[in-house]
């Protein structure tokens, strides 16, 4: 279906058999593309592919769908919802000129949001492949995406945090301990979100109630989420559980999502159900999605595409459902997809850029596993870069150590580091609450209270005595 591309460099003629191969070979090196067998065979071939890609008109992506329209509902979503009027002002551009335009002074935040609905994920992926890290940061910073539920997420100069109080056996006291730790470090305005250790409806409802009680008792302007399968959340809603946000891991091809056990209709049903609960106070963005490069290949559902292009297509799914939050869990999947700190950092910046360009409220789980060649210094680098890029939210875990999922992500301390060095405030409603609760002495200087704020001191006094504690 797709024509081949030829390029002569000196005495050597490079041939790319189709658009998918061209996109894959133009992608900065990463282990997942090598595993898939789609990676450029040499450094030179990669740059040649980038040069060919730069010459390609953007409108090619409206004709060559990479994943066939007839076979894939995400391709159909992308094509059927494409806004030709929004596209018209960039329709004449090549991929290379699109990069120039995005970097130019013409591309103001307002201009970028005007053309947003005319950009497809493949266009975003293509231009990202010929952008350096600083380009990805500079343009992402110009893309503004604001969402709301019980607070307002994504305003300029703000950085939100997901408080992630996971526990290996879902012990409610253990979870409450991590929630308290997070709140007292000023964490949790994006969401208080638990990955359940036992993934079923009854367990999810128990955790939803726990978080709902905490949010109500302390009158916290934030939302909760149990990261269980969308069908479990639907069932919880039917049973009357206090559901704020609906979670689902999503991928960029229909077959990936089928392997996750849902389709677009499932998401639409869940979105309707959650919106119907009307639990938001300042907005009604009710979806929370997670993504990550490599998921399509892992499900053997990548259609010969590189992993970053598949990832960008997942954002088309996300934006269709007006999410409050989208999180690329960049280093979780392991070194067979992103081998080391350098690949994780690049992928994090690409995902954030593509998400923001397409208009989704992009956050990042800045993370790594112990079998990847990465460490805290790599995470410090990515955190700082994403903070500069205007990342919507990051995770918050006690001491960076997720004792349930066995990986490392950003800590409560890390978020405060980013606030101080980059002057990034929490969501305004949450910032007011932190001041009201005396968690911060001085919110503008991000100075915490040295003591224990009164309402929490009272709660700690409720603790069972050491003797009565038989379990631990």
């Amino acid at each position, binding site marked *: 279906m797709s024509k081949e591309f030829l390029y002569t460099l000196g005495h050597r003629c490079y041939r790319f058999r189709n658009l998918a191969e061209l996109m894959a070979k133009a992608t900065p090196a990463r*282990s997942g593309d*090598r*595993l898939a067998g789609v990676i450029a065979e040499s450094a030179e071939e990669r740059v040649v592919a980038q040069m060919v890609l730069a010459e390609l008109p953007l409108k090619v992506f409206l004709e060559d769908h990479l994943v066939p329209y007839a076979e894939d509902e995400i391709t159909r979503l992308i094509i059927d919802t494409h806004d030709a009027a929004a596209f018209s002002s960039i329709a004449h551009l090549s991929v290379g000129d699109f990069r120039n335009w995005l970097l130019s002074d013409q591309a103001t935040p307002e201009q970028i949001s005007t053309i947003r609905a005319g950009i497809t994920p493949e266009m975003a992926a293509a231009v990202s492949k010929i952008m350096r890290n600083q380009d990805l940061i500079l343009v992402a910073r110009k893309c503004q995406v604001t969402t709301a539920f019980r607070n307002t997420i994504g305003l300029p100069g703000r950085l939100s945090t997901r408080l992630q*109080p*996971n*526990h*290996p056996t879902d*012990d*409610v*006291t*253990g*979870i*409450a*301990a*991590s*929630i*308290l*730790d997070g709140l*007292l470090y000023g964490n949790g305005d994006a969401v208080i979100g638990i990955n359940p250790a*036992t993934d079923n409806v*009854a*367990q999810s409802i*128990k955790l939803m*109630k*726990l978080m709902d*009680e*905490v949010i109500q*008792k302390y009158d916290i302007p934030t939302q909760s989420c149990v990261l269980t399968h969308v069908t479990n959340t639907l069932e919880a809603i039917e049973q009357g559980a206090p559901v704020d946000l609906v979670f689902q891991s999503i991928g960029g091809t229909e077959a990936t999502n089928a392997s996750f056990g849902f389709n677009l209709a499932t998401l639409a049903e869940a979105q309707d159900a959650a919106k119907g609960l009307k639990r938001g106070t300042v907005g009604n963005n009710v979806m929370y999605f997670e993504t990550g490069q490599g998921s399509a290949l892992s499900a053997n559902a990548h259609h010969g595409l590189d992993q970053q292009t598949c990832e960008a297509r997942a954002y088309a799914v996300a934006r269709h459902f007006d999410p409050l939050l989208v999180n690329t869990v960049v280093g979780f999947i*392991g*070194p*067979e997809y992103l*081998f080391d700190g350098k690949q994780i950092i690049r992928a994090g910046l690409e995902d954030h850029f593509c998400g923001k360009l397409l208009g989704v409220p992009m956050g990042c789980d800045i993370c790594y*596993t*112990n*079998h990847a060649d990465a*460490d*805290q210094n790599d995470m410090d680098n990515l955190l700082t870069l994403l903070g500069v890029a205007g990342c919507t939210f990051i995770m918050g875990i*006690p*001491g*960076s*150590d997720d*004792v349930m999922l*066995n*990986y*490392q992500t950003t*800590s409560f*301390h890390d978020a*405060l*580091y980013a606030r*101080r060095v980059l002057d990034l405030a929490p969501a305004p409603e949450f910032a007011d609450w932190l001041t009201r609760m005396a968690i911060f002495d001085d919110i503008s200087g991000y100075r*915490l209270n*040295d*003591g*224990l704020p009164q309402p929490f001191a009272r*709660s*700690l006094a*409720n603790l*069972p005595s*050491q003797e009565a504690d038989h379990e*631990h």
Partner: protein
Amino acid sequence: MSTDKPSRPVTDNPWHLLRRFTDARIGLGRAGVSLPTSRSLEFQLAHAQAQDAVHLPLDVDDLCLQFEAESSLSSVMSTQRLPIQRLHSQASDRQTYLQRPDWGRRLDEASREQLKRATDVPQASYDLAIVVVDGLSSFAVQHNAVPFLRALSDGLDNDDHHWSLAPLTVVEQGRVAIGDEVGEMLNASAVLVLIGERPGLSSPDSLGLYLTWGPRIGLTDAYRNCISNVRPAGLAFSEASRRLVYLLRESRKLGLSGVKLKDRTQDDVIETSESPGNFLTS
């Protein structure tokens, strides 16, 4: 700025006493908003241990000596007293292993030849093949394989069925699915893979147990039952053995494993789904 008292640069968190409710690193205190030195170095040590667990090669000589020295392991060693088989996957080294999970799932040619020769016993078939695999934590296998097999040996001894065991195999640079190939070549009804799990920061020594009925190349995880986090500070060896023997017995009875075989050994303790109070909301 106040100068009347020398203030400590580290602010402690009065809620650190909540540490008794969770292994999460709560109440760490802070220097400004950063981790205090001691906490930062504790983290670095834990990460160093987790990385070492991934990268230190399994000491196969030592492991085999451990197996052979333990007379109490007799019930899990080869019923026909065949020697331990040392095998290797198609991933030649750790760097390759980490990037090519597909190669870690298959034996290399030399190992296949060796296994064919060693098991060239006419009509031999077994109830169970035990395959010990380094996986992502050699540390877990080096330290926890023998104590677990000791517990399993007791469990099998006390079972009504007399389990015939294939020769014990040890595989380097292997993934879980390599057990399918080993089990198939050994003509075993079931395969049990003991494998080092991806190390967590607080758990570099987790052993995973994977049971597959009717092992053959190409099976997916849907055909396996898994018991995870087997280590002294996690799931105790005796409890892991109890659950495994239950699964073995059920698997043999039903002639299957995986999603259709449910572990019901815990049903009596998980019924606590009403909302119990906690100190934050009570």
